[in-house]
Structure formats: structure tokens, C-alpha cells
């Protein structure tokens, strides 16, 4: 690999994960995760890693649980229906406080759905996804470069907080080819040790990796510990990108592929003198409420653009100032807006709410 390469998002993510010292991938094939899956199948043996196709997503997330318990960086990838199957495992990973990366290459649903892009797994991802009170850190790349960067960082975050991390992307991001600068590889043996891992009780007290503690009191204590951990993540790890917020009267809020499409619509509108800005959350959990904090007296409306019927909208409603209305443009099921569609909606809202 040279300094900058033309890579697909999937390749960028896969290669980046390996460079982050992740040498274990377990997964079950499902479109549109196939290319990431196949990249790992081809590449991991080349670097002495382990690629294993599991018999189901349930088995995949359980293998992840085992390798994570053994103290190694590990990942899996799937799409909606498979991610749903994994939720039991993610809840158990969160309870046992095990680090790992789970990639959801979203497809249109609900149910079996169809193989078209979608962003309709937002609520599932950001509200934990499985049973019980837990959260996974959720990252939303919007370019092949971000697929690489966020994959690399996901492992740092997962290890730092001993928590599952999810990357929410879709088939379009996976397949688009863009210039990507990859990080230098990390030697997994040089990573900070994990003294809590189960590796065989040699010269130390034995370790336990438990999906449930022994007593009622300990479970309450675990919940308090998790709550405090999540509060700390909310304060420290929220990330977003924004531009043209100064003086903006309409702010578009979008993530991932929707943000790429909306970006062009926003630029077109600005060229015509409309005071439009953009907030692009990069962490979906923790949702960057901070982006909505700045004194923005001029904002007359938010327009949330997403490929679902109103999921990130909920977080925007919670984060924004109560006086400012939030509008929504989006649908699941494989609906993908064009730049023109977003522009037209943007102008419609602007004409209704903002000064011309």
C-alpha cells in the first residue's frame, strides 16, 4: 500500500481494521456486506490472521465474545437481519464489558427487505439494540477515508471503554471508490495488555469474564458502572462536523450517505444566497448534542435528511432548542434521495420558515 490509494469503502475499512491490530474476523455472508467479508477472507491469511465463516450471525457474535474475552482485537460485519440476530450477543458483550467492532452495512428493510441502501437501523444501533440498559458506541462514516479512520479508531475506543463499538454504513459507502490514506500498521503484540482477559491463570489470580454477575447487588453495581461509563463517553467522545452555521437560518442535519447527498444540495442553495448550514454527526451514539448548543439565534428550522422515516429526527428533537421546529425528509425501504430532491425540499422549508 502506498501513501494514498484509491480504495472502496469496504477495502478501506477492512485494511484499516487489520492495521489497527485486529487479526480476527468472524462472519456470516449477507449482502451488502459481501465485499468486506471477502476482503477479510483474502487478506487475513496473508497477515497471519484468522478468518472464520460462522454458521450464523448468532455464532459469529459468540465467536467475537470468545476472542474478545481472550484479550484480542476482533470484529464482525453483517447487515440488518444479521445484526438483529446478533443483538443477544451484543447485550452480553456489553454486560461482560468486552471490546469489539461490529459493522452494520445497512440494507433496506424491515424484515428480509431488499439490497438497497438504507439508514433505518439508526434507532436499533443507538438505543443499544438488544435487551437491557446498555449502549454501543456508534460511528457513522461518510467517505471511504472515514471508513478507514473510524475503523482504526473504533478499536481504540472499544479498548478504552471496554465496550462494543458499531460502525453504521451502507452498501453505497462500501462500494464507492475514493482516495484513502491508510494508517501505519500496529503490531497487536505491542498493544496495551488486558489484565482482565482469560488467557489461562498462570502466575496470577484467575480471571472471570461474566455475562452476568453472581448477586443482585453486583448487577445493580454493574448497571451503575455502565451508566457512569456511558455518561463519560457522552461528554468526551461526541464527534460531528458542521459548516456554515454562522448566520444560518436553516440547518440540515444528516449522517453518512445522506450527508454526502445533502452536502451538495446545501452548497447549491448557498450559491443562490440561501443561509443554509449543515451538521453531520459522526458519532450517532453519543449523539453530538453539543453541536446544537451554540447560540444560534438565527436558526429558524432544522431539516433532518435520512434514509428512514424519522429516526435521527428523534435525537435532533431532543438536542435542539425547543422553539425551533425540525422538519424531516426521508423514508426507509431503499429510498435514496438525489441531490435535486434534497435541494427542492430544502428550498420548500426555507421559503416557509426563513427570510428570503
Amino acid at each position: 500500500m502506498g501513501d494514498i490509494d484509491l480504495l472502496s469503502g469496504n477495502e478501506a475499512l477492512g485494511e484499516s481494521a487489520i492495521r489497527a491490530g485486529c487479526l480476527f474476523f468472524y462472519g456470516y455472508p449477507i449482502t451488502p456486506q459481501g465485499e468486506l467479508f471477502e476482503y477479510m477472507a483474502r487478506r487475513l491469511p496473508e497477515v497471519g490472521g484468522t478468518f472464520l465463516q460462522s454458521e450464523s450471525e448468532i455464532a459469529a457474535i459468540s465467536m467475537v465474545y470468545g476472542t474478545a474475552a481472550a484479550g484480542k482485537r476482533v470484529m464482525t460485519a453483517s447487515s440488518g437481519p444479521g445484526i438483529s440476530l446478533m443483538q443477544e450477543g451484543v447485550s452480553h458483550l456489553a454486560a461482560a464489558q468486552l471490546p469489539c467492532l461490529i459493522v452494520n452495512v445497512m440494507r433496506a428493510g424491515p424484515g428480509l427487505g431488499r439490497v438497497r441502501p438504507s439508514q433505518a437501523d439508526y434507532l436499533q444501533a443507538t438505543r443499544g439494540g438488544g435487551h437491557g440498559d446498555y449502549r454501543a458506541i456508534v460511528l457513522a462514516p461518510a467517505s471511504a477515508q472515514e471508513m478507514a479512520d473510524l475503523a482504526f479508531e473504533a478499536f481504540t475506543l472499544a479498548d478504552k471503554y471496554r465496550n462494543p463499538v458499531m460502525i453504521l454504513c451502507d452498501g453505497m459507502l462500501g462500494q464507492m471508490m475514493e482516495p484513502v490514506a491508510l494508517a501505519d500498521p500496529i503490531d497487536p503484540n505491542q498493544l496495551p495488555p488486558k489484565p482482565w482477559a482469560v488467557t489461562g491463570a498462570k502466575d496470577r489470580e484467575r480471571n472471570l469474564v461474566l455475562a452476568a454477575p453472581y448477586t443482585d447487588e453486583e448487577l445493580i453495581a454493574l448497571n451503575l458502572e455502565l451508566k457512569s461509563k456511558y455518561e463519560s463517553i457522552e461528554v468526551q467522545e461526541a464527534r460531528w462536523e458542521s459548516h456554515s452555521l454562522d448566520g444560518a437560518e436553516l440547518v440540515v442535519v444528516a449522517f453518512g450517505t445522506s450527508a454526502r447527498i445533502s452536502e451538495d444540495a446545501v452548497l447549491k442553495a448557498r450559491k443562490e444566497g440561501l443561509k443554509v448550514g449543515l451538521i453531520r454527526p459522526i458519532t450517532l451514539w453519543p449523539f453530538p448534542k453539543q453541536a446544537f448548543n451554540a447560540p444560534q439565534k438565527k436558526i429558524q428550522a432544522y431539516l433532518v435528511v435520512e434514509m428512514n422515516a424519522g429516526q435521527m429526527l428523534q435525537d435532533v428533537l431532543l438536542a435542539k432548542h425547543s422553539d425551533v421546529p425540525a422538519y424531516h425528509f426521508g423514508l426507509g425501504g431503499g429510498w435514496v434521495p438525489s441531490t435535486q430532491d434534497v435541494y427542492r425540499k430544502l428550498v420548500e422549508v426555507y421559503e416557509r420558515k426563513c427570510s428570503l
Partner: protein
Amino acid sequence: MTKLFTRPSSMSDAATPYCPGCTHGIAHRLVGEAIDELGIFEKVIGIVSAGCSVRSWRLYRFDMVLTAHGRSPAVATGIKRALPDSFVFAYQGDGDSAAIGLAELMHAALRCEEITVFTINNAVYGATGGQAAPTTLIGQKTTSYPSGRDPSYAGYPINMAEVIASVSKNSYVARVALNNVGNILKAKNAVIRAFKTQEKGLGFSFVEMLSACPIGWQMAPLDSLKWIEEKMIQQYPLGEFKVPKGLEP
């Protein structure tokens, strides 16, 4: 002073969490004895999951993992692939192995994962109050089928050892019983041979252990030992169903 019989040193002092007469405790002890005798304490990682054995991690002094119901063979795969020099065993019940986790067990066996799986077959779901298991016998009463298992309605029991032996090319597969001293000593031998299979890298190892559940069967403990002898062994014959090449007889 000579020791005639002691608690294995790989076991802790914790009391077992089981009902009076439940023979899980014997199985746990046999595993502990085997670990002592093979000298593998520092390499062992054991996995337990939902079911009566959910708290059995307290019975040992080595690294233990508690995971979701049925997933232990997949978790064991994840640990053994990450740490090939470790000694990994999963301890499961019949619901774990033959119902919710059947796919994970079958595929670990198909892949000939170098792990050891112990399945406690007591033909009932003890932890949740006595419901039917895939290994519940025809006519056996459970809370799921209070008038007794009717095959035309609920199908037939599964003989796990035979099934695993038929799909796992490189493996050690045995079925033993814990209902009398002779059978327990044979069970101990099977545990040792299962661990030796893993030690020598000969493939997958699986020991199904017929075990008593007096409370689940609504019997007195001594009657439950008899029930294993008279009813369970008829459906689930004892013996070795597969021995890998390289494991001495």
C-alpha cells in the same frame, strides 16, 4: 499420611449450587480431577452458560467465562482460535447443546474445533422449572407436556453422541452415566480421553453424561439413579462412539 481421596486442587471450596441428588457435582469434580492429573491448570479456560450450571464458574479456580445460552461451542471456538495453546472446554446442559445451541455445537464438531464439550443430559430443563428438553424420553412427563411426551405431537428424543460422532471426522465422542460408582469411574476415563484428544491436537472431543435431576423428574434422589439405569440408558446407550486416530485405546 496418604491421601485416599481429596477435592481436586483445581476446584475451589465453594458449595455446589445444585439440588440434593443432582449429579452435576460429580461431573464437575471429574473435570477438576482430570485437570489436576493432566497438569493443565494454567492453560485451562472453561465456559459455562445459562442452565443449572450457570453459577458453576464458582466451583473452579481457573479462568472461567459465562456466556449466553447455547453459545458456548462458538465462544470456545473464539477463545481457542485466539489462544491455540490454551485448553478450552465448554460445559453445557441438554437445552444448551441440543436445542438453542444445536447449530453452534454441530458446527464446532464439523470444523473439528480442538475444544472439549461436556453435555449434561438429564432429559429435562432443570433451571427453568422442569420443562421438556430435546432429550426428554417418550412418555416422560414434564411441565411442557404434563401427560407425557407424545412423539406424534412433539417428535422424538435426540441421541447427541451418535449425531456428533456421525458428523465430526476427527473427534472423540463418548456417552457415560453418573448413576453408580462403576459408571462414574468410566466417565472419568472418558473425560481424560477427551482432554487428551485436545492435548494431542486430534480434533473435537465430546462427552455426553447421563445425569440425575430428582427435582425435575419429581423423584427421590435414589429413585432418580434407578431411572437412569432403567430408562435413560435404554434410549441413550453408553460407550465410545468415535475415537480419533492417535488416541491410544
